[in-house]
């Protein structure tokens, strides 16, 4: 068999028009201001610099939206996705991956190196929370900004698609309000810093006895603890039955929110092979088991008066926090966006996604239906599935798609050139 079969002789790179280049440069300049402050280790004139940085990033995004989308008729615009260095694992893609990974490594294990950024964000933190910033505020703010700005980009990219518009407004709203403004305001009001859009087991701490001790000091904290329990045992099965796991994963969740917005340019990088699916099934349910075992051990330890398991259960918790909470969900999950796609964590690691997936697979009205014999096996659906589902394998056989991992983003249906796929519940 000839090696060169299925390779184009000269994969010609698509030239990015100069206005788009200006837009990207403006955004990069905004990021550069942050990088300089990060490297300098201290912030000079934090208010103007932060305003300038956010302003440049916003201007860059808006200019890009105008040039790339609004100046053309609305429709699927994936031209050059596999030619561009940033979105095809080229030099820029790797550079971005290294940058994000480096940021996460500092965030989790070397926060002292983020001092410059913490200083830079302190005025904003004062304004919102009436207290100085820490690395988590820096992280939360940048995260929310990414969801917001890239959410705007996504919104206009798919402005012809009502499902995508509404879903994007939802996912940006949940991040902005429930994962940034509200927790900030709660801190200002001397209340526990609660993120209502996350709960156990994704927020693995929320279900632990340590968390409970903290929460029981206030009504709101207690409410959140039991709200989380209710969401796990009742909310998830009921909502997933009616809507599929998308009610959470692509409409509410912050991890999903980042993947759907900032991660959208990388969604096609997910691995579609059968092998990847096999790894996925082993890995994700192992993490769910790990999370359950970790939490149960902690509670057993408390129930037995800390006599039997003392150090072991906490060691187990620390291992989970390090391996899954930080390394998997953060460093790999987001840092590797430009290399492995935007849903690595959601697909291979998230215990909440595993739990939702079990219900979606076994007991849900949600499915993706295929339209008779209209499939032409083109492969756009599979390529742009961020969860790496080989959608085409089902569509070309005219079969409904019922998969535990499907987050219901609806992009397969959007990119299909023959109108074959429809999300239904």
């Amino acid at each position, binding site marked *: 068999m000839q090696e060169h079969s299925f390779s184009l002789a000269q994969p010609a790179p698509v030239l990015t028009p100069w206005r788009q280049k200006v837009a990207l440069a403006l955004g990069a300049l905004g990021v550069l201001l942050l990088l300089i402050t990060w490297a300098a280790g201290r912030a000079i004139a934090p208010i103007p610099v932060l305003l300038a940085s956010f302003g440049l990033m916003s201007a860059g995004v808006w200019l890009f939206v105008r040039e790339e989308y609004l100046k053309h008729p609305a429709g699927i615009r994936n031209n050059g996705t596999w030619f561009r260095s940033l979105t095809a694992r080229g030099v820029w893609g790797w550079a971005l991956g290294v940058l994000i990974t480096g940021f996460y490594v500092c965030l989790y294990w070397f926060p002292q190196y983020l001092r410059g950024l913490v200083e830079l964000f302190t005025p904003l933190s004062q304004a919102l929370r009436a207290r100085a910033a820490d690395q988590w505020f820096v992280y939360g703010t940048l995260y929310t900004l990414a969801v917001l700005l890239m959410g705007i980009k996504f919104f206009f990219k798919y402005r012809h698609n009502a499902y995508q518009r509404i879903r994007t407004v939802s996912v940006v709203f949940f991040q902005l309000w429930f994962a940034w403004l509200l927790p900030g305001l709660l801190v200002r009001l001397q209340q526990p810093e609660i993120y209502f859009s996350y709960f156990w087991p994704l927020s693995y701490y929320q279900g632990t006895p340590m968390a409970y001790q903290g929460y029981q000091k206030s009504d709101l904290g207690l409410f959140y603890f039991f709200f989380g329990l209710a969401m796990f045992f009742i909310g998830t099965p009921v909502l997933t039955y009616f809507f599929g796991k998308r009610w959470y994963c692509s409409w509410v969740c912050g991890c999903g929110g980042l993947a759907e917005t900032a991660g959208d340019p990388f969604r096609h990088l997910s691995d579609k092979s059968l092998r990847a699916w096999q790894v996925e099934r082993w890995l994700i349910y192992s993490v769910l088991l790990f999370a359950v075992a970790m939490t149960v051990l902690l509670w057993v330890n408390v129930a037995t008066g800390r006599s039997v398991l003392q150090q072991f259960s906490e060691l187990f918790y620390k291992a989970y926090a390090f391996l899954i909470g930080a390394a998997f969900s953060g460093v790999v999950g987001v840092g590797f966006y430009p290399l492995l796609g935007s849903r690595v964590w959601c697909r291979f690691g998230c215990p909440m996604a595993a739990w939702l997936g079990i219900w979606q697979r076994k007991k849900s009205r949600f499915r993706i239906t295929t339209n*008779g014999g209209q499939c032409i096996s083109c492969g756009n659906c599979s390529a742009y599935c961020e969860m790496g589902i080989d959608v085409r394998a089902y569509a070309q056989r005219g079969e409904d798609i019922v998969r535990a991992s499907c987050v219901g983003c609806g992009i397969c249906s959007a990119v299909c050139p023959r109108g074959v796929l429809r999300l239904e519940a």
Partner: protein
Amino acid sequence: MRIIIIGNGVAGITAARNIRKRSDHAILIISDETDYFFSRTALMYAYMGHLRPQDLKPYEDWFWAKNRIELLRARVVEVDFEGKTLRTSEGRTLLYDRLILATGSKPNKFGWPGQDLDGVQGLYHWQDLENMERHSAGLQRAVIVGGGLIGIEMAEMFHSRGIPVTFLVREPSFWNNVLPAEESDMINRHLREHGIDLRLNTELREILPDTRGKCRAVITSHGEEIPCGFVGLTAGVSPNVDFLRNTPLEIGRGIRVDEYLQTNLPDVYAIGDCAELRQPRPGRRPIEAVWYSARAMGETVAHTVCGDLTPYDPGIWFNSAKFFDIEYQVYGDVPPTLSPEVETLYWEHPNGRKSIRINYDRLTGAVLGFNLMGIRYRHNVCDQWLRQGTPIEAVLESLGTANFDPEFYPQHESELVALYNRQTGRMLRLKRRRGVGWWIGG
């Protein structure tokens, strides 16, 4: 039993898969084009950078060995139908018990001066895509000749790379030998909205060479010279059967087959683009170079080859395409011009990018066809209405059940019913509307 299939397009591959499902026969697929099956209809997406070349393969490479389907990359140069052998360009001789010809098409050339110059080509084979790629670097303008599906795809491909396109269409409106006037005009407008230089009523007269034998310009039927570094010839395709001529095999435009897809020779079958039905069903053409027909023939011939003699039933006609951003679906019979006994109900969105057309019998009211632009309808619902000849009014009342657009999309079925009421003075109401999911509407 040893079955050889010539051609690894959708017809041949579907035949192989279905033979494997129902038997243990040895299967060998020979292709000169690529090592593996790929989606021909998706070639454009590889050029546009939506997909990588390997993404065009519908099955992973391990699939073939696992299903004991042998693949051979070779060109068949000669078939000895009496000795049941064939010879490849490398001189190998292969024996078969049953032979399935699925050799596909080749782009039409109508004897234009300069049609064989470098930079002049159609788009059908993988190699055509490679050549397009080769000619794209530094290309200042492409001229495309022929207002059909491949022509508009080629226009979209060049347009995606910012290469200006001049599109010569012989007819007074795009693809108006298939599309009714309103839909055809919608595509004219859409092409121009995208900045395509659309020249209607314009034919190619001549392609001019430069000093190195590459095309440098075309001259149109109006005598205008348009400089260009590439000319796309997309005036249809015809069966790729030249290597089989002058054999006992009966060939017209394509390989002649009966309703069981059998040729005039025993144990030899032809399917897909290269097959010409001796007696097509009423209203259908003898050669249908369409993905869906090829796939259906592949499935049918598998039954017959495995001993279960099965006639090819093309079913109710359907097809689909995408013209830049406007999706197109057709179910049933929607001719470009109406015969007196057919009534048409045509609704178009004020934005001019969506439409629904339903044709029905003026006397009985039975629906005859659906044409959708920018709106998705359910294949099986339309198919059932068409098979049963459901009256237009019954269809209109439950039209919502046919809607296949994504959730939250505006639904226009009630506008269609209102239009019908205005035109006929009837007072129909839409009974079945598709809910926005089950939770709103129902």
